[in-house]
């Protein structure tokens, strides 16, 4: 396995940076957010999830530290929250072996209650396996009791999910793999609009310990601040014992949700 995809070996890098901090506000503590494979698994605006976690940590009075882990990197210590993105099928092939080599680390963190958000491609690879349309099996790391089967049908469009824990969740899906849940996980919710995990059971995403897995890609957290704050609260409580929230202004998020909900599939 080469250390990086041929695409990323092209030209200079263009990192996103966090907006400047307000130094006048004393910090309640630092939270280390790790992005998994941003180089190869980031096709659908996954940076949005990292940015939302970082900015909301600030708005709640904490200091975010954004770390990233790419193929071949040493795995960082003292991580408080993990996010992993979507990606194309080719990206999944690039990270597959490296991810398998981190299976025990990620499983231990998951069992220990580490908050994690895994979207689309990494949702699939956090499961037991992805069986492609042609029958070959890509093994996952089995953190989640789910399995995914490739299909000819591509599920694309706006989605509204009704979640017992988080209320309505809004997003967009674009995947050909269809995932079914085993008894070891609960669905994140049921779809009111859109397809979700697969075209049969009306379920979307998976919940296990403090992991949220979903097919709603890229911009899941911006329009779903309740989900973002669940991940933040869990990370802060694990590290500092308690969480004192701030008062983020979610008025644009509320309006963006209302307008997204009215858009056709």
């Amino acid at each position: 396995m080469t250390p990086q995809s041929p695409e990323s070996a092209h030209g200079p890098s263009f990192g996103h940076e966090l907006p400047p901090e307000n130094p006048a506000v004393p910090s309640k503590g630092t939270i280390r957010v790790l992005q998994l494979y941003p180089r190869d698994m980031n096709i659908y605006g996954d940076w949005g999830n990292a940015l939302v976690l970082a900015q909301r940590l600030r708005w709640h009075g904490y200091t975010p530290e954004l770390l990233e882990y790419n193929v071949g990197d040493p795995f960082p210590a003292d991580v408080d929250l993990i996010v992993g993105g979507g990606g194309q099928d080719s990206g999944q092939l690039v990270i597959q072996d490296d991810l398998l080599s981190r299976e025990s680390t990620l499983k231990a963190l998951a069992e220990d209650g580490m908050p994690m958000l895994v979207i689309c491609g990494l949702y699939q690879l956090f499961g037991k396996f992805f069986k492609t349309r042609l029958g070959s099996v890509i093994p996952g790391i089995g953190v989640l009791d789910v399995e995914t089967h490739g299909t000819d049908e591509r599920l694309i469009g706006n989605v509204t999910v009704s979640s017992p824990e988080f209320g309505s969740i809004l997003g967009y899906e674009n995947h050909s793999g269809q995932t079914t849940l085993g008894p070891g996980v609960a669905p994140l919710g049921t779809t009111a609009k859109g397809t979700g995990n697969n075209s049969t059971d009306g379920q979307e995403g998976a919940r296990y310990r403090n992991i949220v897995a979903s097919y709603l890609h890229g911009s899941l957290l911006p329009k779903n601040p309740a989900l973002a704050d669940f991940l933040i609260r869990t990370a802060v409580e694990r590290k500092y014992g308690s969480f004192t929230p701030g008062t983020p202004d979610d008025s644009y998020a509320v309006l963006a949700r209302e307008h997204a909900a009215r858009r056709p599939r």
Partner: protein
Amino acid sequence: MLYFSVPLGKLVRRVSRLRGGGSALPGLVVEKIDPGFMQRTLSTLPLGVAVVSGTNGKTTTTKMVVELLESQGLKVFTNRTGSNFTRGVAAALLGEVDWRGRLEADVAVLELDEAHAVHFVNKVPPRYSLLLNVLRDQLDRFGEIDKTAELLQHIASKTTGTVVLNREDPRVARIAATLDGPEVLYFGLDDSLLSTFPNDDDMRAAPGSPVPAAPARPAADVVLRRVGADDADFEYDGVTVTTAMKLRGVYNIFNAAAALTLARAISGARGTGTDQAGLVSALSKVAPAFGRGESLVVDGLPLELVLVKNPSGFRLGLKSFPAAGYATMIAINDNYADGRDMSWLWDVEFDTLRDGGVDQLTGSRAYDMALRLQYDDVAIGAVDTEIAPALAAFIRGAQGKPKRIFCTYTAMLAIRRELSKITTVEVVS
């Protein structure tokens, strides 16, 4: 031989024009009754057919190629109506052929949508193809950008003469390795300009993370060496030429290198030589296509429309047009022609707008845009999802200031419509 389909098709065209109908119906009719019409007509052209495809910049690039070839004295057929589907090409042909079905042209230069180009090249193998880029828009149509790259690969594989490829787009450049028939030419960028063209795969490396060394790149027929405020340097045949440019935006000027490469290949095929000075002169005069980086005058001050369709394009737009001194509006729709998925806004950094803020947001997804700007600490003036009142408020509020509007495709159409209602619109370039 006289084909009955041609007079009938032309008749349908006349009737549908009288009714104010769409441009594709006559194409549909002629396709149905005479499936060989397009192939037969285009096969008579002495220099054959050139197809321009890619996710972004097709319209302006096609316009450039046509004007460059016309500078060489060639008569060019093109699908000017902007209908870049097979049916649209057939309809445009009906408008140009005589009643006996003859097309008086030396070459056809056709802009084709990636997906439709596949059907077209199966019917009419092009002598030339120009493949611009595979950017991350329209994922709601194609699922993955690797899929889009496969569509372009198919166009290249059907090309009989010369394939022109973007050396700097890895998915396009890779197509060369799959070809063994046609000649391959590249257009490229100077190393110093690479950083202004982030590709989609580089989008999310961390600040300060190690930069992988760029692999050795093949020699390009035309290289864009420098982009100035209103001029640019192109290198070809070992000589660097400086030319004034009416086109704005580095992506348009990079596409000029693409157009030059294709136009040089086509005009060179005549065997009578290329008028290099004429090419450069024509290039300096090319104006943007409708709605694409146009500069208008509203209330005596410039108003620029910058079309944004994907993260790379939006980031290039923000880089190409500094915000200082301008009032800014952003109009984001999520209709089919815009792309339904809004996730891509999160792959654009808006820090360049932080100093001046954004005066007005509009479009069906104006609040998604507001939310995006909020997370980049960019101040927002007003938000109104309805384009007409938002545009009026923007123009009223920004009196005495030059204006810039970043807009998705259908928002751009709506803005153009509204602008002509509320003010005299003069197209500058």
